[in-house]
């Protein structure tokens, strides 16, 4: 609808010429102000069927010849018209009309085009310049739409990245909360036990204090002393401090250990989520590996045994929270790839140019067609609702933004290995030696 009316808007209702009109009269017509804007004029028969176009340049060619006007001025215009002019139906879309016209027009442009209705009857003239302007406006409008779509797309991408971040954060928090349950469980149980077990010790101390008073009092009656001795002895027997000592030592040891575990988890969480501190100071990536493992421990512990082979690493500038996110993603994927109980090996090493982290699992591996797509956004092998398909694509982007590479090798049935390479800053040692 809009495209059909687009051509109608270009239509100029120029009064057509009869085929028998003389060339001289046509020339006069072309000189009138209302026809100044046209390169050509249409010739239409009585029935309204367009016969051709007569162009300004065709007439100029005649008139430029010596005695041209005198010799041919009286001839009918039909003789010099172009009998196969450009004819465009009004119901053609703007784009199709443009395609048709640019396909048939020749250099130099000497003619306009005839607009006809669906029966092929003359309706008016259109000029190439107007068509160009209309196309330009159309393109401008399209650009606006595209630009808006691009903005929307970027926005939704940011939202998706954010929701992936929230999802992995949620997973992490749930994992840590669960991880806290174990030490919290026994610490919470141990403290009342400690109180209960140590209560007899206070009774013993009390009885012994009474006894000491008796012993220190020269006036103390025999009977009172005997009772105090008895009480102290029985308190001692019920408290059984020798036996208790072992239990208490164990309980205190366990409780302290549990509290340390809790503290370690909380510190790990804090380290881990040094949220979006952009390019941080020099970082030892082994610290990142360790803190990611603390967080991932819960996801891994019943799936795999973890082996660490951490080499000596030079510190490199990076965003530790982002590297942690990548490592957590790789560790979780590794745990999920394992059927039954398997192995996860994390290795780090460095050479002159870069630092390397490898995360290898003994899981089910991936066939080549899956492997080729794992870094694609939204690609996931997990059931709907269980993975955003963004984890690895975000990891890829993070490593790329650090100037590094992430590569993967996998063998179905054998396992998968991810290798991260992060470059060492190169300029520093040279400057120092200079």
């Amino acid at each position, binding site marked *: 609808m809009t495209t059909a009316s687009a051509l109608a808007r270009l239509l100029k209702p120029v009064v057509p010429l009869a085929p028998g009109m003389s060339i001289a009269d046509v020339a006069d017509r072309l000189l009138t102000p209302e026809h100044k804007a046209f390169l050509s004029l249409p010739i239409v028969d009585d029935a309204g069927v367009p016969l051709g176009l007569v162009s300004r340049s065709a007439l100029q060619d005649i008139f430029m010849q010596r005695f041209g006007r005198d010799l041919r001025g009286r001839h009918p215009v039909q003789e010099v018209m172009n009998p196969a002019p450009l004819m465009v139906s009004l119901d053609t879309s703007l784009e199709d009309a443009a395609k048709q016209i640019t396909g048939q027009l020749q250099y130099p442009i000497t003619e306009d085009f005839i607009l006809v209705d669906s029966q092929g009857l003359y309706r008016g003239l259109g000029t190439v310049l107007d068509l160009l302007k209309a196309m330009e406006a159309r393109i401008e409008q399209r650009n606006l739409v595209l630009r808006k779509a691009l903005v929307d797309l970027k926005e939704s991408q940011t939202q998706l990245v954010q929701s992936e971040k929230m999802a992995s954060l949620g997973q992490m928090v749930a994992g840590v909360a*669960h991880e806290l*349950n*174990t*030490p*919290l*469980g*026994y610490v*919470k*149980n*141990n403290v*009342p*036990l400690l109180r209960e*077990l140590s209560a007899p010790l206070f009774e013993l101390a009390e009885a012994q204090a009474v006894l000491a008073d008796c012993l220190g009092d020269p006036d103390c009656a025999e009977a009172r002393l005997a009772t105090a001795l008895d009480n102290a002895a029985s308190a001692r027997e019920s408290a059984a401090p020798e036996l208790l000592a072992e*239990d208490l030592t*164990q*309980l205190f040891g*366990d409780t302290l*250990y*549990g509290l340390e575990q809790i503290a370690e988890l909380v510190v790990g969480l804090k380290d881990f989520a040094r949220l979006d501190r952009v390019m941080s100071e020099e970082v030892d990536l082994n610290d990142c590996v360790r803190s990611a493992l603390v967080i991932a421990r819960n996801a891994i*512990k*019943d799936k795999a*045994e973890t082996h660490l082979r951490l080499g000596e690493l030079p510190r490199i500038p990076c965003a530790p929270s982002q590297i942690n996110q990548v490592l957590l993603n790789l560790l979780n994927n590794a745990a999920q790839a394992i059927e039954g*109980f398997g192995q996860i090996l994390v290795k780090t090493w460095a050479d002159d140019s870069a630092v390397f982290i490898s995360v290898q699992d003994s899981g089910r591996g991936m066939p080549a067609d899956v492997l080729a797509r794992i870094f694609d956004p939204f690609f996931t092998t997990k059931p709907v609702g269980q993975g955003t398909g963004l984890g690895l694509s975000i990891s890829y982007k993070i490593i790329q933004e650090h100037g590094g590479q992430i590569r993967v090798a996998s063998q179905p049935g054998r396992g998968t290995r991810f290798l991260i390479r992060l470059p060492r800053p190169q300029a520093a040692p040279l400057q120092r030696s200079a």
Partner: protein
Amino acid sequence: MTAAIRILFVDDEERILRSLALQFRRQYEVLTESDPRRALERLKREPVHIIVSDQRMPQMSGAELLAQAREVAPDTLRILLTGYSDLDAAMEALNSGGIFRYLTKPWDQQEMAFTLRQAAEIAARQVQIAVADMPTTLGNQRAALNVLLLDNDGQTLSVVAEFCVSGGHRLLRVASLNEAVAVLNNQPVDMLISDLQLAGEDTAPLLKSLAQAHPRLLSLVVTPFCDTQALLKLINEAQIFRYLPKPIRRGLFDKGLLAAAEQAQIWRAQPAQIVTRLAQVPREAREQEKVGSWLGMLGRLRERLIA
């Protein structure tokens, strides 16, 4: 006092085991294992009345352990102690492990002690039954059971109806909870198949009160609703027999119905005073009230059971 009740705690964290052992060693004979495989070996070798297992352990999950423990030592009461709210694990522990309680970490000292005391009471009763040498498997006699259906779902109806026809059981259908109570007060019911919603009403309080009024009634819950907390309460407070997700998975449902029928037959063959189940009273006051009011309506049933 009969021989000491033996409780086996299984957890991959030794400190949990030590803590629990120290807490309970005075009341019970406490055994501990940090490896579920060794726990299974132990169950085969020596009598254990109660087993309390962690869910997530490297060698096998607690739900798996309890399911296998049921095969090895069916009379041992099974309790899951876990820090994870994992619906699948809870469902497996109930449906395959037939657990007595589902406890969460970190646990409450009093609650743990109370739960173990309840379990120990049941275990002590079981010991006496064992002495009396009760049949725990069925011969050829099969009684027709009464099966009450509290679900308007057509699919549930067709599966349960088919089960009743092939087993020769009576299917009782009701459209509301009040009708259900009327049926329960008029005749003995062996099995109850219920959604958590019936005609807009919450069926959980009725299930919980039935667990108290009629501990031998076997409830199978079929529901589209998946909530670990709700399931946990249904296990502990309603002693449900199975929790089956909707849409119905035919094989799982059929197996649950058959297992319930088998259990009901065994109980029918035993004298009424021997009850091996005990539900926990809900902790929330509002819920307690609801359960209490259903209990009142079920009064006649209780009287008849006692008589």
